[in-house]
């Protein structure tokens, strides 16, 4: 098979200058000009819809279809919110795009705004991305100076503003309605849906929320066409009429116990094994892998024996994981204990639960406390039953919480109980302490 040629990372890999002149010299903003000059907004929506592009932010919802949920002939305003909260642990692909090639993202935003008839985009950026903030602001200033933002862009009847809005260190503001509440100046408490943002979103107006990578893909779909996009990735399963397929290139993040942690662009559907061996330089220190987090910690855990699972929108589900998530793969080696991995994960969710649903607020705390006991060699066998009950009863799927944070918090526990139960039981029986628990940590919090 011919080597896949990166598109999203093309300019980044050749270390191209990230700003406007260089971007334009590489053909930048020609896709936007094409949309603006040669296509009606509805045609752009249609193009994105037929491309099969699915959201890259974690949920995998078909992008063009979401755009069609906006009310028809709405008098406006309609808003676009760019989700650059990127806080799913082990995920950093949006950061690389924004830091190193901000115009590629901004071009996608302009195309999206034109398509959905929005003249205002709020770019919600996590505070921790200072370099991305400064590069994006500079790139946005360049666009205003060159009649690519503001009034009557390129002399056409299309006006648009993009405003950067910095977050303040809360994972939950990545959930699209938490993001909207936070943007409005309130605490980032997710809203009950419906209404979905396309009907009633930011400032109670129709709103589309899209991830940074999704919007970068839009640029290339307009530039290269639907056939190109669909020539990459995995076609829908003919036996599953509800499968929307997994088309296009995807940025995979590889981290943890590999020799060369990195972000690579590959066709959707690459396996964990290929990521580890070919792109991550193999497992570090000559060790073997024990397992991996397939798409951010919310997606659960894969064992080494499951590494041949393709990372498309369907693959992870076949081995009991929640989904593709952010396609951020974190490997842990055979000297890592499952209690340590779970302790870290449960602590994260207990810290980041926004607290508005009792099952999530309390459940994430219980799971964390139990894992802490367990890794200290003080676990009880009945703790596993509590873990099982809590992990199965919190989330949107069981219908007990407002947002999906709780589903993601339960999933790694469910997977670990199904896939690593003997190890957990043996920890409890022998009173073994995990590596991390035996370190004397000052920062025990």
């Amino acid at each position, binding site marked *: 098979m011919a080597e896949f040629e990166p598109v999203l990372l093309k300019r980044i890999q050749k270390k191209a200058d990230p700003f406007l002149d260089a971007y334009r010299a590489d053909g930048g903003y020609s896709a936007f000009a094409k949309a603006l000059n040669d296509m009606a907004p509805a045609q752009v929506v249609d193009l994105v819809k037929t491309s099969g592009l699915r959201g890259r932010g974690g949920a995998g919802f078909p992008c063009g279809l979401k755009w069609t949920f906006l009310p028809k002939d709405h008098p406006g305003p309609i808003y676009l919110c760019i989700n650059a909260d990127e806080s799913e642990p*082990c995920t950093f692909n949006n950061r690389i795009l924004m830091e190193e090639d901000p115009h590629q993202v901004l071009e996608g935003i302009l195309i999206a705004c034109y398509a959905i008839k929005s003249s205002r985009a709020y770019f919600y950026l996590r505070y921790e*991305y200072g370099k991305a903030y400064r590069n994006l602001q500079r790139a946005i200033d360049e666009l205003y100076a060159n009649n690519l933002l503001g009034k009557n862009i390129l002399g056409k009847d299309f006006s648009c503003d993009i405003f950067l809005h910095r977050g303040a260190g809360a994972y939950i503001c990545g959930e699209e309605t938490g993001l909207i509440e936070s943007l*409005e*100046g*309130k605490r*980032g408490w997710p809203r009950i849906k419906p209404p979905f943002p396309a009907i009633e979103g930011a400032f109670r107006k129709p709103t589309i929320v899209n991830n940074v990578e999704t919007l970068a893909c839009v640029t290339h779909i307009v530039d290269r066409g639907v056939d190109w996009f669909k020539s990459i990735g995995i076609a829908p399963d003919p036996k599953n009429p509800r499968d929307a397929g997994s088309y296009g290139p995807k940025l995979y993040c590889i*981290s943890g116990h590999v020799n060369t942690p990195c972000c690579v662009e590959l066709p959707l559907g690459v396996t964990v094994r290929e990521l580890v061996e070919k792109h991550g330089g193999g497992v570090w220190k000559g060790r073997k892998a024990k397992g991996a987090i397939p798409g951010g910690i919310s997606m659960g855990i894969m064992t080494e024996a499951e590494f041949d699972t393709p990372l498309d929108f369907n693959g992870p589900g076949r081995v009991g994981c929640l989904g593709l998530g952010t396609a951020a793969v974190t490997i842990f080696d055979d000297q890592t204990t499952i209690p340590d991995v779970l302790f870290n994960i449960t602590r994260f969710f207990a810290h980041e639960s926004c607290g508005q649903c009792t099952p999530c607020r309390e459940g994430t705390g219980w799971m964390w406390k139990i894992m802490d006991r367990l890794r200290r060699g003080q676990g009880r066998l009945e703790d596993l039953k509590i873990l099982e009950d809590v992990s199965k009863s919190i989330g949107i799927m069981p219908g007990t919480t407002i947002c999906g944070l709780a589903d993601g918090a339960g999933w790694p526990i469910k997977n670990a109980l199904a896939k690593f139960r003997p190890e957990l039981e043996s920890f409890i029986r022998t009173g073994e302490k995990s590596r*991390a628990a035996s370190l004397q940590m000052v*920062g025990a919090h």
Partner: protein
Amino acid sequence: MAFLSEALRKKIEAYIPRYPSKQAVTLPALHLVHDELRCVPREAIKEIAAMLDLAPAQVHDTMTFYEFFREEHNPLAETRLWVCRSLACDLRGGEELLNHFCHKLGVQPGGKTKDGKITLEFAECLGACEGAPAVMINDEHRHNVTTEMADALVGELSR
């Protein structure tokens, strides 16, 4: 006498036309004040609220939701140093690194060095996992931080 400087008030006001509601300026205003004063004092909350037609309690409510902002009894040092404790970093020594900083600086996470130079914090994933263990100095990442680099960094920031 206004508590916030004229310059700061102007910067906050400049955000108002960007949003259809004044309340949306809450986060930008908190950031502006916090950056400059290293905390958001009660008087500042009242003045932000007045500028945005809100009750001070609304601003306070939003502010305290994000553990990010400091109240006046507990201001930040000159530099805020965050050490990532999430999974990708933990697997590559992030917890040990945080521990090292605690010993080196003589503070617990959240605390400030005696000379007022550094506030140490733990962080959840900083989005720099290819460079684990990662830290952040104010809002800039440092990758692959070894204990030697940590010591050099403390020296640099304590000057």
